[in-house]
C-alpha cells in the first residue's frame, strides 16, 4: 500500500483514477488544484462546480479532498507564458506548461514533501517505472485517440518514476465512463471539457483581444506583396489558419506566416503555396524524458495533440536539434510542441522554432 496523492479535477478521468487507486488498497488523498477562478466576458469559470463534483467523488470514495491554490504558478507559468508567446508571434501549448510546472511541478513537489509515495492523475498515458534509479519511461495510452503524452514531454522521468496513470490502460473513453457509472460515482455523464481550460468556449481570439492591445495592420498576399485587407493584430493569427481573416469574399485564404515585429499577416489562396509546407523542423528548448538525448536516427513525430505520428529523421548537431521528414509536411506553427516517440515510448521533444 502506498500513500498516493491524486489530482482530481471534477472530471470523469480523474474520478476513475481515484476510484481505481482506492480499490487497489492505496491510502489515497484527493487534491483539487485550483489553477484559475477568474470569469471572462461571456464565460463563467466553472471551478466551483468542478470542485463540487470532485468533492462528490471524494465523498463517495470515502477519501479526503484538499483544495490547493495553484493560481500564482498557473498565472505565471501558463497564462503569462501563453500571452507572452502569442505577443511574440508564437502559437504555444499551454497544457504542456501546465503539466510541467503545475501538475508535475508544484503539485508533485508538494505531494512528495507532504509524504506522498506516488502522485496520480487522470491522464491518458502509461508509465513504466525505472529500476535501480533509472528514470521512468512514458508510454502512449492504450486509447490512441485520447493519448495525452503530447502534452507531457517536458516532465523529467524522475518525476514519472513516482507517478501513476491508472486509466492509461483503458480501451477508450466509453469504457472509462462505463467504469465510473458501474461504481456510481455520479459524474459519468459529465461532458468532456474542451480547449484551454481557463478560456473555455469564449475562444482564444476573445481572450487575446481582452488581454493584449489591438494593433491594426495589413494582411498581405504572400506571393505578390499586395495588401488584401486589415487585421487587428498579427498576434491573433497562426500558420495555416483560415478563419478570422476578414478579406471581404474571394477565395479561401490561409495564413502562411505572421510577422509580429512589422505587424503583418501573410496569406495565400494556394494550398500548395511553398510557405505552407516544409520538410524540416528546427527545435529549441529541447527536453528528454530520460534526461539524455537519444541517438540520431528515425523516430515517430507528432506535432499536434492526437495528430498523426509521422516518421522523421532526428539530427543533433551540437545544440541544434532538427527533424527532417522524407517529404514536405504542413508547416507547423512556431511555438508548438514537436514530440518524439520511439514506438510507443515518448522520448521528449522540443518547441518548434521560428527559424527553420
Amino acid at each position: 500500500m502506498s500513500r498516493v496523492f491524486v489530482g482530481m479535477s471534477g472530471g470523469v478521468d480523474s474520478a476513475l483514477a481515484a476510484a481505481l487507486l482506492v480499490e487497489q488498497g492505496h491510502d489515497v488523498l484527493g487534491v483539487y488544484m485550483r489553477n484559475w477562478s477568474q470569469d471572462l466576458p461571456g464565460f463563467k469559470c466553472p471551478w466551483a462546480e468542478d470542485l463540487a463534483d470532485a468533492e462528490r467523488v471524494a465523498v463517495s470514495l470515502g477519501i479526503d479532498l484538499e483544495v490547493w491554490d495553484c493560481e500564482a504558478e498557473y498565472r505565471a507559468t501558463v497564462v503569462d507564458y501563453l500571452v507572452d508567446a502569442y505577443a511574440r508571434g508564437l502559437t504555444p501549448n499551454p497544457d504542456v506548461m501546465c503539466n510541467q510546472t503545475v501538475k508535475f511541478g508544484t503539485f508533485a513537489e508538494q505531494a512528495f514533501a507532504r509524504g506522498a509515495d506516488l502522485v496520480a492523475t487522470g491522464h491518458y498515458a502509461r508509465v513504466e517505472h525505472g529500476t535501480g534509479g533509472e528514470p521512468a519511461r512514458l508510454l502512449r495510452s492504450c486509447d490512441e485517440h485520447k493519448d495525452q503524452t503530447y502534452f507531457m514531454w517536458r516532465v523529467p522521468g524522475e518525476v514519472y518514476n513516482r507517478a501513476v496513470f491508472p486509466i492509461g490502460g483503458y480501451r477508450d473513453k466509453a469504457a472509462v465512463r462505463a467504469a465510473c457509472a458501474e461504481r456510481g460515482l455520479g459524474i459519468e455523464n459529465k461532458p468532456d471539457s474542451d480547449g484551454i481550460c481557463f478560456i473555455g468556449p469564449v475562444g482564444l481570439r476573445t481572450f487575446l483581444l481582452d488581454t493584449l492591445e489591438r494593433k491594426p495592420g495589413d494582411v498581405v498576399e504572400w506571393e505578390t506583396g499586395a495588401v488584401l485587407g486589415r487585421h487587428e493584430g498579427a498576434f491573433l493569427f497562426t500558420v495555416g489558419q483560415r478563419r478570422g481573416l476578414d478579406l471581404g469574399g474571394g477565395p479561401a485564404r490561409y495564413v502562411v506566416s505572421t510577422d509580429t515585429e512589422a505587424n503583418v499577416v501573410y496569406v495565400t489562396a494556394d494550398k500548395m503555396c511553398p510557405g505552407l509546407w516544409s520538410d524540416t523542423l528546427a527545435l529549441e528548448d529541447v527536453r528528454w524524458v530520460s534526461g539524455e538525448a537519444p541517438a540520431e536516427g528515425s523516430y515517430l513525430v507528432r506535432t499536434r495533440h492526437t495528430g498523426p505520428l509521422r516518421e522523421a529523421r532526428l539530427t543533433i548537431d551540437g545544440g541544434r536539434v532538427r527533424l527532417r521528414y522524407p517529404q514536405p509536411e504542413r508547416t507547423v506553427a512556431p511555438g508548438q510542441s514537436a514530440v518524439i516517440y520511439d514506438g510507443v515510448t515518448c522520448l521528449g521533444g522540443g518547441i518548434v522554432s521560428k527559424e527553420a
Partner: protein
Amino acid sequence: MAADQAYLDYGAATPLAPEVLEAMVPYLTETFYNPSAPYAPARAARQALEDARATLAHLIGARPGQITLTAGATEANNLAFAAVDGPVLTDAAEHESVLACAQAREHAIVGVGPDGRVSASDVVAALTPATELVSVEYANGEVGALQPVREIGAAVAAERVRRLEEGERTPLYLHVDASQAALTHAINVSSLGADLVTLSAAKVYGPKQVGLLWSSDDVRLRPLVRGGGQEGGVRSGTENVSGVVGFARALELATQRRKDEARRLAGLRRRLQGQLEAAFPQMVVSGPKRDKLRLPGLLHVCFAGLEAARLVIALERRGVYVGTGSACAASRMQVSHVLRAMGVPDEVARGSLRITLGRPTTEQEIDYAAEQIKSVVTQEAERVGVSL
C-alpha cells in the same frame, strides 16, 4: 408510508404554492397585456396589479401607495439604502445585500452576540448625529435569530425626537428586511416602528425575483432602475403582473396559516433537534435558545471537525437536501460571515448545516432526514476520527 427523500432547504427556496400558481397563470396567458397599454383589455392587467398591491399593503398594515414592487428582496434592500446619502448603521449578521450596500458608503457595523442577536443598546451606542439609516433584519436567515427590531425602532424614534428638539435636520430612518420572517411572523409596519420594510415573494411560496419595499410617507425613494417611470418613477420596467399577483396570493396564504404553521414547524424542528441531540451530545445548535427568539422552522447545527460540504454531498446521495451555512457563502467556500460575527471558531463553522423546514415537510420526512443525518455524520466522524 415512510419517506425516502426530504428537501429541507426552504430557507433557500420555496416551491410555488398550488394556489399561487393558479392565481398567476391567467396573467401569463390570456391577460398578458402591458398594464400601461391604452386599450381596454390591458385595464384588466392594470387592475390585477393594483389589486395585488392593495392586498399586499393591507396584509402588512400599509397603504398601497407606499408599496414599491421590485425584482426581489436584494433590489428592495438596495433601494432602501439609495434613499439616504449619509452614514448608515447595520449589524454584522445581515444578508450580503445589506452589508454590501452599507460597505459601499460611510458606515458603522455593530457586532452580534454568540446567539446571533443584535443588542439594541449596541445600536444606540453606535448611532451618531450624522447617521441617516439603520438597517436590521427581522430574522436572520442563517441561524434563525429574531432581532429586537421594535426596541431598535424605539431607539431610532428617540434619536429622531432628540434631533427635532435640538433643531438638527439630519433625517434618520429604520430599514427592516423581513424577508425571512414573513412566513411565521406577522409583519405590521406600524407596530415595527420602521420606515422601510423589505419583503420577498420567494420566501413565502411565491415566485422568485418578486419583492417589495414598503416606505413610510416620510421617506423619498430614489430610483436605481430608470426608464419608463413605472412604480411612481422609482422602479422603471414593465410591471411583473403575474409575479405580483402570485406574491399577493402567497402572502395572503402565509398570513392565514401563520399561527398554525409556526407551531407545526416548531414541533417538527424540535423533533429533529431532539433526535440529533440524542445521537450527538457534542453537536452545537446555533442561534437563540428560547423559541420566542428564533424562527420556528430553522435548525442550525455544527459538527466540529467535519466538513459541511461533504455532509451535504453524502446526504444528497440519500435524497436529503440541506444547506451549509448560508447559500452564498457556500459557493464561495468561505466560512459564513454570520458565524464569524457570532464568534464561532472556523473549524466549528466549517461543519455547519442549515436545515430549514417548510410547509410540505412531514413527520416522516423529518424522521427519515434524522436517520440519514445520523448515519452520514457518524460515518464521516469515524472516517476523520472525531467524536461527537
